[in-house]
């Protein structure tokens, strides 16, 4: 049942999330079986019935920390893991559920549950790196599966993953897409958002909504001026910066400039 081989041992862990990032691994359909040959998929509850056992060479972590139990659990995962990589906007920035960080948690609970007292949750949803050291953060809501395979391959080859930190704008330019902001006057977070999706929203004639989070050196103030010139109002700017990566530092700070 278990490989006792020398293959590196991979684990996939879930915290508060939609499962979409770990599903990206199962979405690598042609590569999945080859991956199963190169590494031992030692713990991946969504895909396999197998107990937690021993240490893992590479842990992929999906989801954010939003409950007292999960804040404990992530420390146990870190102790078992030689390398820990976070997958996606929840694990690297707290995800859409981090909108609670800007609201009153009790009021949030009462809006959904008749008996909030049964629910054990933290006032914030936070990134994995806020709790334990992280070796690499892969962005996206969800992650791009090519980038996910690159991260695993880089780990196997003991090199740094080749994941660009520049903006979505460069992806539009390399695809030859007309700028949706300049040419079509549509609100677009592309100039301040990290590349990796392949500029799929501009390719579909809509503005980027920032699901890969802030790029390395985002000039949000400059983009905000351009968006205001398009006629975006305070509330629209707030919503734009405050979505799937609301708690990522650059987006959080910019959104607070337009806050209530």
């Amino acid at each position, binding site marked *: 049942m278990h490989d006792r081989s020398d293959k590196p041992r991979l684990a996939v862990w879930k915290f508060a999330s939609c499962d979409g990032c770990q599903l990206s691994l199962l*979405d690598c359909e042609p590569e999945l*079986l080859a991956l199963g040959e190169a590494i031992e998929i030692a713990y991946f509850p969504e895909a396999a019935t197998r107990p937690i056992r021993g240490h893992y060479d590479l842990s992929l972590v999906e989801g954010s920390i939003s409950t007292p139990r999960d804040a404990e659990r992530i420390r146990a995962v870190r102790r078992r893991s030689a390398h820990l990589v976070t997958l996606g906007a929840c694990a690297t920035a707290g*995800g859409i559920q981090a909108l609670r960080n800007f609201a009153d948690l009790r009021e949030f609970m009462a*809006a959904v*549950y008749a008996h909030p007292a049964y629910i054990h949750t933290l006032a914030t949803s936070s990134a994995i790196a806020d709790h334990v050291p992280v070796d690499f953060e892969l962005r996206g809501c969800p992650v791009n599966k090519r980038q996910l395979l690159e991260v695993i391959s880089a780990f196997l080859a003991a090199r740094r993953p080749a994941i660009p930190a520049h903006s979505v704008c460069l992806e539009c330019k390399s695809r030859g897409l007309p700028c949706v902001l300049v040419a079509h006057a549509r609100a677009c977070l592309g100039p301040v958002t990290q590349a990796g999706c392949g500029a799929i929203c501009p*390719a579909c*004639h809509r503005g980027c909504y920032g699901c890969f989070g802030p790029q390395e050196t985002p000039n949000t103030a400059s983009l905000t001026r351009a968006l205001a010139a398009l006629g975006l109002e305070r509330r629209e700017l707030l919503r734009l910066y405050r979505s799937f990566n609301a708690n990522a530092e650059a987006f959080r700070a910019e959104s607070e400039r337009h806050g209530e």
Partner: protein
Amino acid sequence: MANRTIRVEQLTRVEGEGAVKLEIRDGRIHSAQLRIFEPPRFFEALLRGRAYTEAPDITARICGICPVAYQMSAVHAMENALGIEVSGPVRDLRRLLYCGEWIESHALHITMLHAPDFLGFDSGIDMARSHADAVRRGLALKQAGNEIIALLGGREIHPVTVRVGGFYRVPRKRQLAVLAERLKWAREAALETVRWTAGFEFPACDRDYRFVALRHPAEYPFNEGRIVSSDGLDIPSAEFEAHIDETQVKRSTALHAQLRAAGPYLTGPLARYSLNFARLSPVAQAAALSAGLGRRCTNPFRSIVVRAVEVLHACDEALRIIARYEEPDEPACAIEPRAAMGIAATEAPRGLLYHRYRLEADGTILEARIVPPTAQNQAAIEEDLRRFSEEFLTLSPERLRRRCEQLVRNHDPCISCATHFLRLELTGP
């Protein structure tokens, strides 16, 4: 033997975090609980104050396995509020996108999550060593579903083209023609999958389920229809909350849904199939009957065959839609926001998905209510555990644990939508 508690602390091969607890007294099941401890994410609260245009993108993040379902219920509910009805090629494209999600989600569950139960493996990847052809076929089928979503939606998970009123961009006719070639292969693969799963061994476990699903006059239901039940309920989606109660129980971060007059019910493939057999495509009907399914299916273990039949239907339906597709003049219709209430239910792969929104005049969301299929199915899954696990009490603890997990997996619960992993503990009285 007399009194004991069996715990499956972490369900595996399901989406989300859940557990099972069985209490046995005097050799009989005293209680069965499906516990859901997935961390709550408060979507209904965080949607308030957002623009109506954001609902499809935000609610997609409830579930990475069925984001299209959330996008579809969201856009239909908003269109219901704003007095828009989408028709023609845009309506067809939405059905095509939904076909992609059913194929992708069902192929994943059949091959990687459920089949290992019947063939005695811990995972689809382990199963591939001795059932390589079936696993490759299942993964390729899943990929075909994903190709539909990626072509129409820009990417497989959390597609970006769906908007209230239509799409941001629609595909070209010639792009769909290329997809059709893949889908012709997929239809054959789906037929093979029906035959393959029909050959598994199924325990003789039938139940008098109360089925609830959408029913459309002419179509097997995806986006539209009235909500009907096997005992005569027949209501428009707008009356859902008048007939169904959601209650909170201490063991679960998902709310339990029940029919007000009649109690627990089941939604999902078994319900959809049993209430809509005549609306399946002829090839899917024929395949179902040759696979030994009746026009109704009340054995939850056979849900794997029903899912395969639905994959076959979805491939067939996708090909029909592609054959008649003409590019629309506009990808979306113009919209004026207004203060209104909007309601819609669509058929997610796992069953009925209900959305209700209240909007203010500028289209800001004032209130949101979402009832996912797994929340509706919790009581029926617990009832399965109560009824059927008794027959398995003489099994070894390990095999009993596997049976309990399988009883849950039969219904492909999406715990992220409503829970994740199983560990079994046997404790003395």
